[in-house]
């Protein structure tokens, strides 16, 4: 398993490097925005991955709540997965917001607009920061259950927040992958490589963090067992 992890890690770093090369040196310059548009090759892949991890977190949390009494060992693994995905979500959404702001300043002339899509992404960020905060505040044995419940609430909240896109006037560019004004065929390779690279990199981060949390859980259990034996 350990070897597989490092192979995947090396693979994702190589993909990230190749994606950087494709996006900066190979992909053509965009007609209206010029070179600034290249941040899109990171912004969109990061944001798409950032929307995948919250769902992994929610599914793991629901499964944790279901199995926590009957299959304790499995529940602990699910809890570790929930922690890892929540942390990577905060990281990715934060990166997505940062790259979006870097793009917005030259193109829109402002760092931030209270546009629906930006706001809903900020909400996603706040929800998972609050998840990590609550996790830190709550006491020992309870924190996993409390965090899992909050994750279910956050999962319910996300679609409601995103629904507001339809109701608030939006300034964010319409989806560029489908419909009119879509990507030029020459831009697809760089985009797809970056898409894969950031997704695999996220998986590597989740995996690494998961392994750390599992070791922490085992260590805590051993300390508890030793205390019992003495």
């Amino acid at each position, binding site marked *: 398993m350990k070897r597989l992890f490092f192979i995947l890690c090396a693979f994702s770093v190589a993909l990230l490097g190749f994606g950087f090369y494709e996006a900066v040196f190979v992909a053509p310059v965009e007609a209206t925005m010029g070179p600034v548009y290249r941040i899109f090759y990171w912004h969109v892949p990061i944001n798409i991955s950032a929307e995948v991890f919250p769902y992994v977190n929610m599914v793991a949390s629901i499964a944790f709540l279901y199995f926590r009494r009957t299959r304790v060992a499995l529940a602990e693994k699910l809890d570790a997965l929930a922690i890892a995905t929540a942390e990577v979500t905060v990281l990715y959404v934060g990166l997505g917001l940062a790259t979006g702001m870097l793009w917005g300043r030259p193109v829109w002339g402002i760092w931030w607009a209270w546009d629906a899509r930006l706001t809903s992404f900020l909400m996603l960020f706040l929800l998972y920061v609050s998840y990590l*905060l*609550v996790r830190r505040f709550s006491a020992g044995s309870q924190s996993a259950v*409390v965090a899992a419940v909050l994750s279910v609430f956050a999962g319910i909240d996300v679609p409601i*927040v995103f629904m507001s896109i339809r109701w608030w006037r939006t300034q964010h560019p319409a989806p560029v992958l489908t419909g009119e004004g879509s990507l030029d065929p020459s831009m697809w390779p760089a985009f797809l490589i970056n898409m894969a690279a950031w997704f695999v990199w996220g998986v590597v981060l989740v995996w690494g963090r998961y392994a750390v949390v599992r070791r922490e859980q085992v260590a805590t259990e051993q300390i508890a067992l030793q205390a019992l034996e003495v």
Partner: protein
Amino acid sequence: MIYLRTVWLHLRKDLRLEWRSRDAIAGMLFFTLLVTVVFAMAFDPTGFPTLARQMSGGLLWVGLLFAATTALNISWERERRNQVLDAHRMSASPASALFLGKALANLIFVSVIELALAPVFAVFYNLHPLGEVRWLLLILPLGTWAIVVNGTFFAALGLNSRNRELMLPAALFPISIPALLGVVQATTGVITGDFEPQLWIRMLLGFDVIFTTACILLFPTVLHAE
């Protein structure tokens, strides 16, 4: 029917406790009044009536949200004294009845604050609503329930945590943002008369139904978390 009777018993107990001490209502009332005064100092509502109309919906709900969080922490504090909560855990009655009773009690407390505050607000901010005021009869309870149902739930979630006072806002505010957006937009729509509030009322209704269901389903898990 037995379930409803249990809810009623919990509600009556909470109302009686509040009636004897009046801690939550007095605290919230004074707190919201102070928020109203401080905001009036920050900008001149009587000098700029249009601005006052546009802002007062948001101010009202921010004040109510902050006031509600203080009361929500008090409402579970009562159950902690003398290990009442442990008795609830062992009780054969459904856990969600306890939750519903408490949420309804909190709804009543916050509604009392709203009724007391609305005239003060209209006078201090020199408000003449331009939309149809009757919509407020729907918006106020729906918005209050949205805050109170999640607030009661998250206050229970933080019962055994190290910093309870910090945890409630940390969990409640991000989750409630869509409801706050909806209720502030709807209220602003009524006060300014610029747009119809129906869309946001529907959204609030959806939010209330979804989160009430989630709270009722998950409350037993929270009560028996250890």
